[in-house]
């Protein structure tokens, strides 16, 4: 069949559905059938799935002219999705095409939710089209004879590539692709991405640096612009607006009005704990929503989530409180309104959420922004500008993630083993490892074979062994099993299953939260009030708590996101406008707050850099306001604290948000004296930052994830944590051992490097300092905390930095005694 005939099949199929293909869809079909690779830039709900499923099936038809009568088995295509909850939807789309075109192809899902029996069956006979996750793809690479599974695979699609890019799961995908290119000679590689600032780079990361695959590739843009309307929820009386807070519950009545006025409303919160609280409070205050209300977040079990998604589609729900778990994938036509609670910290994310509503053609998407504290309203007004101007941030890919490479090599070693020269060639073509040196490579090989760089007497290290053919292999069954268990744990905290004593799975919860509770304590999780009964074998056993008991809300880390560079720029411009007559509705609403701020201090203009100092019972506060976003503030705070600590012996605790940062101490700081001492100089920034890093905990926290991914922390077997405790150690402890005894370890270096590149954003920091040098420094010695300072000084998640000796510090401290 030639291409024209194939296109007729596709067009007819579209016509039968009552659709007409978009130009981006036919462009993708053409490129695919020409054997090209590519990146398709199309938003959720645009028909991107059919842009790629169709040519995959058409290609099969082309190669098997008698496709209607005879089935040619074997894996033809892999579809990677970052969220396993999306796989059902994708499968349905594929099956629809196959059934209608009468191709005898099979579709299967393989993810953490797939039963062992099903997986074994698949291994014997792979479906034609396989839908899976990055982790499950790695697991396939970890199985014996994987080359045979993939050798005739002709295409792989990475869906929602923008979500993976900029994460270590993205690096996992890069590595898997580098292998597949060799194993499956004729494979086409396609990515699908929503709009991000660095689309071109996204294409390069997907296909590799200067590879054949990259040169034979296209970037196709859907050009579907949706109209988005942003409305700030502003209460009539501003006095009631809190100066700090992160829940926004004071606006619950306004939110209820929006809910009542629309068919279905999605309320997006930034963190899962806020999600839980909003759900509880809405139900308490508006019991009439009961039965038409649901909650959706990543820790809730899959069945419930699927049920919620279906209920939205069937118009059975009035309101769903959710987190980023509903950002991606499936379309919900009935959704009319979106409420965003708190700053979304990114324009792309905000627009994606807005796009969840108004799916009927011609309809504009409406998103209500509900600021959780007064100053966040400035962010609302800046976001509006960003949406108007289409300012969208980049997703920065990871470079030289040694932890992921170590994991990957172990993966290859548990399957058929690997030959270093061959693999080195493959990985040095990936974006992530484009600068890897022979020296780095040898270090990694030594690390996985000897567990160190030099051989010691009395050492019994055992992991990867080198056989007589120089093939690197893991032969110990136990180590192989441990490794396979670890592959899925590339992200996040150690999690534990939450179950009723009577049986019944509720979801997963981070271990650190549970570790703070005692049996008998009550907490809210998945919308239920639960009493902790016991923790047994990595399972949290609970029972229903009496409704009267006071409870803690399950909270999750990782909820703190930072403003991007572009957003902070817009935010500053918006704030400076507060000193003019040209006020947005949000700024107008903030007038009372600005009045209070001006009483003690100022609202800075574009030419001013504000520093406030004051004393409270907690000590001496110094607040700086660069308005550069949390990450830059984190870096600046450590930098300034470090520089001051060189001049006087002092201990600081540091806090930051998107607007500014605080240095808190038990001693007063002479700000003018410090400024005269080049406190804000751009010189020696790298050096000073590096030094300050050694005295804070940032790198230590990065090392936590790295050590899990590289297999240094054994997280145990999910659900049956038997007899593995003797192999567990805290990552804190691990960090200290490495720092003290193997300071040259590449994984340890990676922790520092990642802090620099992905957290502190040194480049942005220097630009911020340069900008500040152009400004006039206004130091206000205030009598009490100002409205601007309030959200910062009340933050309890703090970094520490000290130049005093331990003994000096201890003399001034006391232990907290039991009452």
């Amino acid at each position, binding site marked *: 069949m030639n291409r024209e005939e194939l296109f007729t099949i596709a067009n007819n199929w579209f016509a039968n559905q009552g659709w007409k293909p978009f130009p981006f869809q036919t462009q993708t079909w053409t490129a695919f059938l020409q054997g090209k690779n590519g990146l398709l830039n199309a938003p959720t709900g645009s028909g991107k799935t059919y842009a790629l499923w169709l040519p995959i099936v058409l290609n099969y038809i082309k190669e098997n002219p008698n496709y209607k009568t005879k089935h040619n088995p074997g894996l033809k295509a892999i579809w990677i999705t970052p969220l396993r909850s999306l796989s059902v939807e994708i499968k349905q789309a594929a099956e629809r095409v196959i059934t209608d075109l009468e191709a005898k192809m099979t579709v299967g899902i393989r993810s953490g939710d797939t039963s062992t029996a099903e997986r074994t069956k698949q291994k014997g006979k792979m479906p034609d089209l396989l839908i899976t996750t990055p982790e499950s793809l790695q697991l396939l690479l970890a199985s014996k004879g994987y080359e045979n599974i993939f050798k005739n695979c002709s295409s792989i699609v990475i869906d929602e590539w923008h979500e993976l890019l900029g994460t270590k799961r993205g690096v996992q995908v890069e590595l898997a692709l580098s292998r597949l290119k060799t194993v499956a000679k004729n494979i086409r590689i396609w990515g699908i991405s929503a709009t991000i600032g660095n689309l071109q780079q996204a294409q390069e990361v997907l296909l590799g640096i200067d590879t054949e695959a990259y040169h034979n590739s296209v970037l196709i843009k859907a050009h579907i612009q949706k109209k988005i309307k942003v409305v700030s929820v502003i209460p009539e009386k501003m006095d009631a607006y809190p100066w700090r807070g992160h829940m926004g519950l004071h606006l619950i009545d306004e939110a209820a009005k929006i809910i009542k006025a629309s068919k279905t409303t999605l309320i997006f919160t930034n963190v899962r704990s806020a999600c839980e609280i909003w759900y509880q409070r809405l139900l308490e205050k508006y019991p009439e929503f009961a039965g038409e209300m649901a909650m959706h977040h990543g820790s809730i079990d899959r069945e419930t989530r699927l049920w919620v998604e279906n209920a939205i589609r069937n118009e059975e729900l009035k309101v769903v409180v959710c987190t980023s778990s509903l950002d991606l994938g499936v379309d919900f036509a009935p959704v009319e309104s979106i409420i965003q609670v708190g700053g979304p910290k990114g324009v792309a994310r905000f627009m994606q959420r807005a796009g969840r509503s108004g799916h009927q053609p011609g309809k504009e998407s409406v998103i209500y922004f509900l600021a959780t504290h007064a100053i966040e309203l400035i962010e609302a007004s800046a976001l509006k500008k960003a949406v108007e101007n289409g300012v969208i941030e980049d997703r920065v890919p990871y470079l030289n993630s040694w932890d992921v490479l170590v994991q990957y090599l172990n993966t290859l070693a548990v399957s058929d083993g690997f030959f270093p020269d061959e693999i080195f060639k493959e990985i040095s073509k990936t974006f992530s490892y484009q600068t890897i040196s022979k020296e780095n490579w040898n270090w990694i090989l030594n*690390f996985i074979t000897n*567990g*160190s760089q030099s051989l*010691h007497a*009395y*050492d*019994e*290290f*055992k*992991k990867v062994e080198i056989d007589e053919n120089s093939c690197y292999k893991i032969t*110990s069954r*136990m*180590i192989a099993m*441990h*490794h396979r268990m670890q592959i899925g744990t590339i992200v996040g905290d150690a999690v534990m299953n939450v179950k009723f004593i009577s049986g019944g799975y509720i979801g997963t919860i981070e271990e650190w939260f549970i570790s703070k509770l005692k049996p008998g304590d009550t907490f809210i999780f998945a919308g239920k009030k639960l009493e902790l009964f016991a923790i047994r074998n990595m399972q949290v056993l609970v029972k229903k708590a009496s409704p009267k008991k006071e409870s803690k809300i399950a909270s999750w880390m990782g909820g703190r996101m930072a403003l991007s560079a572009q957003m902070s720029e817009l935010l500053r411009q918006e704030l400076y406008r507060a000193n003019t007559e040209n006020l947005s509705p949000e700024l107008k609403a903030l007038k009372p707050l600005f009045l209070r701020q001006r009483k003690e201090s100022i609202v800075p203009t574009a030419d001013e850099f504000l520093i406030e100092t004051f004393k409270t019972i*907690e*000590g*001496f506060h110094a607040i700086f306001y660069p308005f550069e976003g949390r990450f830059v503030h984190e870096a600046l705070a450590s930098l300034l604290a470090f520089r001051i600590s060189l001049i006087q012996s002092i*201990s*600081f*605790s540091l806090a930051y948000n998107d607007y500014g940062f605080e240095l*808190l*101490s*038990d001693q007063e700081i002479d700000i003018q004296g410090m400024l005269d001492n080049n406190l804000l100089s751009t010189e020696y920034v790298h050096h000073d930052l590096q030094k300050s890093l050694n005295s804070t905990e940032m790198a230590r926290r990065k090392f936590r994830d790295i050590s899990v991914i590289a*297999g*240094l922390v*054994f997280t145990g077997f999910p659900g049956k944590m038997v007899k593995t405790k*003797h*192999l567990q*150690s*805290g990552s*804190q*402890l*691990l960090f200290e*051992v*490495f720092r*003290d*005894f*193997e300071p040259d*370890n590449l994984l340890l270096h990676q922790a520092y490097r990642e802090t620099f590149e992905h957290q502190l954003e040194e480049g942005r920091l220097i630009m911020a300092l340069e900008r500040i040098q152009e400004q006039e420094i206004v130091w206000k010695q205030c009598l009490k905390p100002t409205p601007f300072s309030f959200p910062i000084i009340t933050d*309890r998640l*703090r970094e*520490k930095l*000290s130049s005093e*000796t*331990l*003994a000096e*510090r*201890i*003399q*001034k*401290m*006391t*232990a*907290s*005694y*039991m009452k």
Partner: protein
Amino acid sequence: MKIQIQDEYFNLHSSGALFWEKEKTLIISDVHLGKVSHFRKHGIAIPQNAVAENFKRLTDVIELFCPHKVIFLGDLFHSSKNAEWQLFQDWVTVCTGKLILVAGNHDIIDEKHYHKIGIEVVQLLEIGSFFFTHHPTEKENFFNFSGHIHPGITLRGLGLQTLKLRCFFQKPNQLILPAFGEFTGKYILKPNQDDIVYAIAGNEVILINN
């Protein structure tokens, strides 16, 4: 730092060891030898040099106090016998003085191996009105020395300052020793009003203000 317990003087050392002056007895808890090797044997690459550190620390305190007797309050060895046993054996041969192990929950190596290298193994030990165990234990008319918990303490100060440190934790009739070994971690305790806490800060032991 020197403290007095029932007319006897004890020296609290920053390594976590305790020296009973009159009896010239060194008391050490939770060394967890073999832990690093145990991890490495299972494919977890904890730095090799951490192994030597434990033996260096043991040698250092022995040289400092020259004890006639050393009492290990349990968890001397983290696991079953591995390559570190040989290093331990070497250390024992150069160590003068009598060695006694009060067995802990991790001490699963058969007693006969200890006997072979001249170490006495007991479940508990009484000397005068002092009572030595691995797990903290109350016994009427006795003062108990124990380990097991790996005690640590959180300190707070002005300016939202906090510190977490290893410590000797003294209750009215009990002294819990910190873990001596490298790569052992600590467990934070909250003291009662009649508890006394001696924190380890680098090379010093400091009495915490009440």
